[in-house]
């Protein structure tokens, strides 16, 4: 017996002190002793010998030597029918290792050493156990000493460690050398991809667009060796303005870009597009990443007079947010603070911080104190739409569309005028029937000004302010039918919403300023910064909020950074201005390993479809570990050493053989056997095009794509039912989706399409365009039947197919027309068999064509059925869609002959093909 114990190194006593006692503390005491008033199951484990007695079942919890008869073990093992699983929450179940400790401890005698014996054991064994059990970490200081003393598996802490200085293994391109070093034994990489495949891959990767035919021909004809010719292509693409657009799309996914505020009102954010274009510009001019971060976090503090910097901090405003009169302002304010704190962590540090909001982080060395130290940085950050003159680099075309909104405004004002007149006209009858003297009212009507354009309301206010009793003059809404009560609200709220939309054409930035927190009950119009931001409003102390509750302030904290990165110096002032600059300086400090790893990991994913560390927003212990840690660190070090320019990082990655590999391996069985998870990159991972790439590629194929860069959001046609679907917002309906009148305005790149949180384009949504409410670290690639509905049946696909058919059939014989369709859609000629099949299909479809359908034009008005919300009375109103009066449709079936109509079906099939829908 003694021998066995010695071999396993642990007596039952030792096991108890080292493992069982802490487990009881951590997993059991919450319900069995910590609160003596609320002990569950009559089992009080404050004294562990209660285990021998048991709880309400009357059975001892532990039967010495027999784990399978011990209720304690059966409960934590969670498979026995008679004993409820413990701890009750699945997420807190014991690991298999912890189960083994419990079993061994019971088997070996279920020893319960007393206090003195425990001390004695700790004295002799603790040091050795610490070495084996993991390491403690620094943080800003936990809420409990137990948390501070918590141990972490060293491998789960990789992200907080300084960048390793491992040199690339010798031989060839450093990226290839690192990849080769981790290639499974005996697995040969796939050969290099052919030039056509490579060009398609890299064109999508760097610009999100397919190569043109001319670009393909030039690359195929380039006599230089493959590597040199490819490097030229990469340089050309990096110099394209579309490069910045593609990178911006990645970035906007992470920061949750939208042109509206979400939640109940979903007001438009008129100035958001200027932040979107700032991101495009930043990538195109290859702004160093440290500068890019500093501008987005603290641009207004760094260069308060530079309008572009006021635009850059729009980053801090990207989350959904609103303050309605139904809400407690402090709660809404805290929502912003929590949002921005977590956004900074996820975006720049790949560290989700929200888990530390209510309690110290359960898995990572991030204390609640750290969370509120970072949040304290933003306690003086206030939201405003700030004056910021347009820059010469900003695209200001198309502002004349404003007239459609002004027409809508005029319509609402007219409604209010008519209702006002109706109320005024009804007063005579009211005075007659009530017998009240109408002289004061007449005086008020003649003397008072209008209130919100209303004489009637002006007169009421005049009397109210003179303390005239309310029964001495007519009530609100006098003379209105329930329908008219509804109409008044529609018009009033419509005017309110237009203020946000008209902001689009004004020189204001969606921005922030440092100051006291303004006292406002609701935000219903763009907010301008006060003349003196420190004159009025609430001074927000930086405190820990107990349980994350803004009404439960705890200890004060100073503005600061995460304590875990002890090697990174920081200087965040307590002074209310400059805190964000201090935070940004800490994020970009060359010794900060999180920021550099986070961004090179993202860029790697942008090219290979999967990142080196599986969760680009979460490097903590619950995120995936890097598959190639040395490569990740080397790339991060290189990135910093070379001035943090993205274009150099792209060149470095794209010039590797790893990037240029074929996506088909000559020996798929070898891949399946030796690299089932596809981590070796022995073969290049192809991907489905994103929602935006699918749409842009169709427009590029037909030649309709408007390639101008930047500017106010565009509105393509979306599914007409979705466009006209009534959309409830607070107290009214949001305006219907109205496409731009002219095709070239509609056919801009998808990056520029108006993104409303409350009205995602169903076609984009179904192809996994992420909702703007959460940071998207990686696009999903689901395959669902509604995608087939959208791409095969949708009006947009049919319109593009028709445009491609018309272009291809012009002055071409049938074979040439088919060839043009293939080249435009797939970038290659059809094979002889494909050509044959296509021609036969064309002929067959011609025989199946029915009569030409009439063009479908968007309506100039829609009738809306509504329920007047206070009375439940149904009523209808007409919403006028002013822009639709000028609508110029795309090419219609009625405009072409049957030859083109039938060829369009071939084009539709090509646009739906797997080859079209994937980047190879």
């Amino acid at each position, binding site marked *: 017996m003694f021998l066995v114990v010695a071999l396993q190194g642990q007596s039952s006593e030792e096991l108890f002190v080292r493992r069982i006692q802490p487990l009881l503390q951590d997993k059991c005491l919450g319900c069995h002793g910590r609160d003596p008033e609320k002990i569950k199951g009559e089992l009080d484990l404050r004294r562990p010998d209660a285990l021998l007695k048991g709880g309400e079942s009357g059975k001892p919890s532990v039967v010495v030597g027999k784990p399978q008869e011990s209720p304690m073990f059966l409960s934590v093992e969670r498979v026995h029918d008679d004993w409820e699983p413990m701890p*009750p929450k699945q997420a807190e179940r014991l690991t298999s290792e912890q189960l083994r400790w419990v079993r061994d401890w019971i088997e070996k005698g279920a020893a319960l050493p007393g206090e003195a014996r425990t001390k004695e054991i700790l004295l002799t064994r603790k040091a050795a156990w610490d070495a084996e059990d993991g390491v403690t970490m620094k943080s800003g200081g936990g809420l409990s000493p137990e948390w501070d003393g918590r141990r972490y598996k060293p491998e789960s802490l990789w992200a907080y460690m300084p960048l390793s200085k491992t040199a690339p293994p010798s031989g060839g391109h450093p990226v290839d050398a690192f990849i080769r070093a981790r290639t499974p034994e005996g697995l040969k990489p796939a050969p290099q991809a052919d030039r056509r495949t490579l060009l398609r891959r890299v064109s999508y990767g760097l610009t999100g667009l397919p190569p043109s035919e001319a670009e393909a021909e030039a690359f195929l004809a380039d006599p230089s060796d493959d590597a040199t010719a490819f490097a030229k292509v990469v340089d050309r693409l990096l110099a394209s303005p579309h490069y910045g657009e593609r990178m911006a799309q990645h970035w906007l996914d992470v920061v949750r870009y939208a042109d509206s505020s979400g939640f109940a009102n979903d007001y438009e954010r008129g100035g958001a597009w200027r932040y979107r274009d700032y991101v495009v510009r930043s990538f195109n001019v290859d702004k160093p990443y440290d500068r890019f971060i500093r501008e987005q976090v603290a641009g207004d503090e760094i260069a308060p007079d530079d309008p572009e910097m006021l635009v850059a901090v729009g980053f801090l405003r990207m989350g959904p947010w609103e303050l309605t009169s139904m809400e407690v302002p402090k709660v809404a304010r805290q929502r912003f603070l929590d949002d921005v704190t977590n956004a900074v962590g996820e975006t720049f540090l790949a560290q989700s911080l929200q888990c530390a909001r209510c309690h110290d982080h359960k898995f990572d060395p991030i204390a609640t104190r750290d969370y509120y130290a970072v949040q304290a940085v933003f306690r003086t950050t206030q939201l405003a739409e700030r004056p910021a003159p347009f820059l010469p680099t900003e695209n200001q075309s198309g502002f004349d569309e404003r007239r459609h909104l002004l027409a809508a405004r005029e319509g609402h004002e007219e409604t209010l005028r008519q209702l006002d007149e109706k109320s005024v006209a009804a007063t005579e009858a009211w005075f007659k029937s009530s017998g009240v003297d109408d002289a004061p009212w007449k005086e008020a009507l003649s003397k008072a000004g209008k209130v919100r354009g209303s004489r009637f309301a002006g007169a009421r206010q005049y009397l109210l302010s003179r303390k005239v009793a309310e029964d001495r003059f007519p009530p609100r809404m006098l003379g209105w039918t329930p329908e008219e009560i509804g109409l008044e609200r529609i018009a009033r709220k419509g005017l309110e919403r237009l203020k946000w939309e008209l902001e689009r054409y004004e020189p204001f930035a969606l921005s922030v300023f440092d100051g006291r927190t303004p006292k406002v009950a609701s935000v219903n119009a763009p907010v301008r910064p006060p003349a003196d931001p420190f004159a009025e409003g609430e001074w927000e102390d930086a405190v820990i909020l107990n349980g994350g509750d803004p009404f439960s302030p705890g200890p004060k904290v100073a503005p600061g950074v995460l304590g875990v990165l002890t090697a990174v110096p920081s200087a965040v002032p307590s002074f209310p201005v400059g805190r964000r600059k201090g935070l940004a300086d800490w994020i970009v400090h060359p010794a900060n390993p999180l920021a550099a790893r986070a961004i090179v990991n993202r860029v790697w994913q942008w090219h290979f479809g999967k990142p080196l560390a599986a969760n680009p927003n979460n490097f903590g212990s619950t995120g995936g570990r890097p598959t190639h840690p040395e490569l990740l660190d080397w790339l991060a070090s290189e990135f910093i050493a070379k001035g943090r320019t993205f274009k150099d990082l792209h060149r470095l990655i794209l010039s590797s053989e790893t990037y240029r590999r074929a996506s*088909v391996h000559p020996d798929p069985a070898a891949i399946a056997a030796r690299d089932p998870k596809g981590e070796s990159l022995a073969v290049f991972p192809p991907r489905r095009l994103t929602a935006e790439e699918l749409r842009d590629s169709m427009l590029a194929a037909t030649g309709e794509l408007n390639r101008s860069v930047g500017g106010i959001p565009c509105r393509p046609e979306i599914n007409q039912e979705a466009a006209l679907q009534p959309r409830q917002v607070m107290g009214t309906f949001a305006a219907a989706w109205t496409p731009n009148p002219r095709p070239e305005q509609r056919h801009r790149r998808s990056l520029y399409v108006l993104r409303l949180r409350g009205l995602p384009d169903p076609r984009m949504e179904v192809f996994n365009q992420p909702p703007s409410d959460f940071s998207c670290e990686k696009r999903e690639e689901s395959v669902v039947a509604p995608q087939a509905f959208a791409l095969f049946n949708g009006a947009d696909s049919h319109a593009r197919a028709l445009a491609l058919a018309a272009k291809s059939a012009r002055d071409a014989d049938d074979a040439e027309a088919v060839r043009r369709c293939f080249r435009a859609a797939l970038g290659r000629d059809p094979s002889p068999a494909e050509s044959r099949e296509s021609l036969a*299909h064309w002929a067959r479809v011609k025989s199946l064509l029915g009569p030409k359908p009439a063009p479908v034009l968007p309506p100039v008005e829609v009738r809306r059925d509504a329920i007047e919300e206070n009375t439940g*009375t149904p009523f209808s109103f007409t919403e006028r869609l002013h822009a639709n009066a000028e609508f110029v449709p795309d090419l219609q079936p009625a405009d072409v002959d049957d030859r083109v109509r039938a060829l369009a079906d071939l084009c539709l099939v090509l646009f739906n093909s*797997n080859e079209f829908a994937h980047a190879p």
Partner: protein
Amino acid sequence: MRPDGTFPHPRLARRDFLYGMGASLGSVAFTSLLADEARRAGVSGPHLPAKAKNVIFLMMEGGPSHIDTFDPKPALERMHLKEFVREGKQKSAMESGRRYYVRSPFKFIKAGQSGADMAENWSHLAKVADELCFWRGCTVDSVNHPTAMYQMNTGNRFGGDPGIGAWVNYGLGSVNKDLPGFVVLPEASHPQGGAANWGSGYLPARLQGTPLRPKGAPVLDLLPPHGVSRDRQRANLDLLAKLNAAHAEAHPGRDDLAARMESYELAFRMQAQVPEALDLAGESARVREEYGLDSPVTASFGRKCLLARKLVEKGVRFVQLYHGSWDSHDFIERAHGNLVGAVDRPIAALIADLKRRGLLDSTLVVWCGEFGRTPDNGVRQGTAYGRDHNPNAMTIWMAGGGCKAGHTFGATDELGMEAVDLKRHVRDFHVTLLRLLGLDDNRLTFYHAGRFKQLSQFGGEVIRELIA
């Protein structure tokens, strides 16, 4: 394509069937494949024995007043128009200005053998009162519509999490492979918070609720543009299959390509199946009359209730019906009067019809809003009595599905301001709903963003009183 210029047959890989809204092979082998997939996803059908297999969830958006429907408060009679003073730290603008207690304009009756309290305008529902299980103790966290809606529908106030229907399908799997397992019948305008009320969140996208539009095409782009015949579409699909097959042969081992090919065939089948499932033409005149399809007042919600029964019959697990807005801040007599009038007959018909068909035992019907309403109101124009939002009290009722029919549980204080008996957070209701379906909330989890997530967010307790 092969060197001889012919096209191979489209390959059918195992995963083909597991995408989209399900496939329609219906073979034993397929069923076992699904079970296999479900096991890998951590799900294995019901965890516990249960009666309910389907849910019809009647969501009265806007917040019905418990005080004016199923929780009479005679004490308000003597308080009527007395001034109200509210205390508490979370002052919202709704509580600004002078406020007064408001009595209910509705008379109450004791309905059925069980003597359930009902406002007398629920005259049809009263006939099935003994099938209902009332609970007056539910509380939620939010006074705002969209956040409260999200909490009721997804457990998470801030949206983005899976809807209840997604969880139920995740746990139990779907039955009809040609129809989605989670169908939503919204009003013509989507509720506040929009489609996120029935999203799949972090669960697989196929689990998200499919809204069937009340007018026009039930599913967007379900059918090709006008003038494209089924023959022509079939011809296009055939060419697509050939091109894709050639491409797949050149790209071996790619499950995603095969899945995408199958999704087109499934879509083609759905084009035929979905309109059939929604066709009410075959229903008898008696049924149409019962559901109120012939009256303009009840036709809209009656159609939804009848569709819900048909969808449940076809194996759709979770059908959610929206009605409202019940946000009656003013003129509650007229507003709630109209709203009750629109749903009373259809709901009563649905319960009776389910019972007659032997479906009520296996179908849990739930009626609720996102919160209750206050006993007080700022009185407008002297007579416009209404009620504001109240997260501290609301009434939920259930029918069928193993709930304790013919009983009323829990209570609010004498004014209906706060729940005082069997007062439980809505997360406990979610846990109870899952339990009625045989699902254990603590085991119905999905690992996402660093932790196991569940409908109740952090776990909850079954409200045992509500279960038969």
